[in-house]
């Protein structure tokens, strides 16, 4: 207690009497270190989390019911739908019929049958436009034309990356249709069945399912492509806010749904490569942050070392008048702690008060996602504690080196 009291007094007075600009500079370095440690990895992880979030909101939903591996479709889809209606924690759900399809644009103009066909391979989805929109907000992705009406016949929404004018930036990465505009006809073939559709709208998203897919009303899909059993391929469920998808999944499993279909929460359904990329980016961010941490600890070490060295004589005198070494060491550790705490607090204020809201409102526009800043509380606490402990060590070591020197040599400066 005595050591802490006197150590704090000496340490705080040194901070108080130090040059204000020196203090500001050190705190600035600590703030940058905090931001480097928290924000860099947060932005890297945010690239993937932004992609995951979009994937969740626009495609998979919070819980996804799909066909069992050994089945083509969800067996007893209508029975499952009736069951879902009884769950109050479900905000909305959308039933999707999906088939691999080929869309062709120039089939009318192509006189020479040997000439190249303007085709694109895609996944055609039959949806109820209203519930799909309620669940995934598909209508908000319209960039040209208009959204589907449930009673539309012969109308189709096409993903922007199926059209050359939207996908030109990707070069030859995937096939596209040329010269297709709103109101043009395209021919869609699924298996042996073909039908002409008029392009009613173009949807654009960074989610591949949307931007590379096509959408028609589910009634027409079932009728044209022979899905008379009404068994769907996907049911995407959106939960009410603050309701756990794990609880819903457990309840669905308990009701025996797994006899007919596979149920996955979003986390379970996230592709492994996304999780791997996220972990890799996190590691990369930690590595970059660690370099900053080392630089900051060296900075603190040098500052405290110079400070202690320039006060070597005073340290000797304090020891001569009976002040224990531990008190002197604590005084310097107090300074280091002050810089670490103040820098971290300012860094946290900037992160949570400015950077996170800013990137939420203005995501970084990457080709495959809207990058946000992901700052998890536990991770922040862990990294802040790491910064704090390393700074304390960087403050303690030079104080320990100087304070352990012979008292008389310190006083006489020899």
């Amino acid at each position, binding site marked *: 207690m005595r050591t802490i009291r006197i150590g704090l007094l000496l340490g705080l007075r040194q901070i108080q009497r130090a040059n204000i600009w020196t203090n500001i500079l050190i705190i600035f370095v600590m703030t940058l270190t905090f931001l480097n440690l928290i924000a860099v990895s947060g932005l890297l992880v945010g690239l993937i989390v932004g992609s995951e979030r979009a994937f969740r909101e626009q495609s998979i939903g919070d819980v996804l019911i799909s066909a069992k591996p050994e089945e083509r479709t969800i067996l007893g889809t209508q029975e499952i739908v009736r069951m879902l209606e009884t769950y109050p924690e479900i905000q909305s759900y959308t039933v999707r019929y999906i088939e691999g399809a080929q869309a062709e644009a120039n089939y009318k103009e192509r006189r020479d049958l040997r000439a190249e066909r303007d085709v694109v391979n895609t996944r055609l989805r039959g949806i109820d436009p209203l519930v799909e929109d309620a669940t995934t907000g598909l209508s908000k992705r319209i960039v040209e034309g208009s959204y589907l009406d449930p009673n539309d016949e012969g109308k189709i929404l096409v993903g922007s990356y199926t059209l050359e004018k939207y996908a030109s930036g990707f070069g030859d990465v995937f096939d596209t249709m040329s010269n297709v505009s709103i109101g043009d006809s395209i021919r869609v073939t699924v298996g042996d069945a073909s039908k002409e559709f008029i392009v009613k709208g173009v949807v654009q998203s960074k989610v591949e399912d949307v931007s590379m897919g096509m959408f028609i009303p589910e009634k027409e899909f079932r009728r044209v492509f022979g899905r008379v059993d009404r068994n769907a391929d996907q049911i995407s469920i959106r939960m009410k806010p603050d309701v756990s998808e794990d609880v819903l999944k457990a309840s669905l499993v308990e009701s025996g749904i797994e006899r007919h279909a596979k149920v996955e929460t979003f986390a379970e359904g996230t592709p492994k490569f996304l999780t791997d990329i996220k972990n890799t980016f996190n590691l990369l961010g930690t590595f970059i942050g660690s370099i900053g941490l080392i630089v900051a600890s060296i900075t603190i070490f040098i500052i405290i070392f110079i400070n202690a060295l320039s006060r070597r004589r005073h340290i000797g005198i*304090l020891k001569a008048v009976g002040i224990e070494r531990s008190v002197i060491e604590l005084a310097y550790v107090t300074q280091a702690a002050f810089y670490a705490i103040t820098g971290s607090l300012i860094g946290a204020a900037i992160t949570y008060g400015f950077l996170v809201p800013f990137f939420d409102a203005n995501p970084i526009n990457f080709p495959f996602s809207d990058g946000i800043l992901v700052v998890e509380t536990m991770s922040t606490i862990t990294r802040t504690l790491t910064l704090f402990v390393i700074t304390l060590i960087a403050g303690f070591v030079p104080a320990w080196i100087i304070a352990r020197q012979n008292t008389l040599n310190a006083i006489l400066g020899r």
Partner: protein
Amino acid sequence: MITATNITRTFTTGDIETKVLKGITVTIDTGDFVAIMGKSGAGKSTLLYQLSILDQPSTGDLVIDGTDVLALSEKEKTAFRLNTLGFVFQDYALVPDLTARENVMVPLLMRNISWNEAKILADAALDSVGLAKKYENLPSQLSGGEQQRASIARAIAGKPKILFADEPTANLDTFSGTQVIELLGKLHAEGQTIVMVTHEPEYTHVCTRIIEMEDGLVVSDKLQ
């Protein structure tokens, strides 16, 4: 109070050995005001550092207040200095970040004295050296003489059994030097045992005993 027997101190630099103290035997009694005098290089400050256990003699025995101090560990020596000895240094040696009051308080707090009591004792010590209105002044806001008096206040606030002063007037003008010496004389009159190193004979009139050194040896030891 202090019994030093056959104290030697040798410094080694590379292959060169310099014997600064060549076997000093001296006894200082309670209530003495001893001046250690001599020319530069005579070994007077080195002797003071041995007697005040700031340094470790090469050979010899040293007993202070009944304690064989050379057998103590570094930590025990620090505690011994805190509880038994007081120091006044040539260049005041106040902590520049602390006020005069805080400089005096720190060793008191180290003795586990409460904050309030330490403050009262510090103020009383500063009052006694004539710094009643300078409690909150930083060392840089005090003159040289005032700083030395604050240093004396720090040394005496804990009521040490022995007060060591290493050329306390060396950095002061005559007026301030005289004030400091008179202050030490007053403390001695109140019963304080003092050992002072000085090379200025005009400041020895308050001393009861003068030890003259030359070339690492005591050449005279006279009462006055």
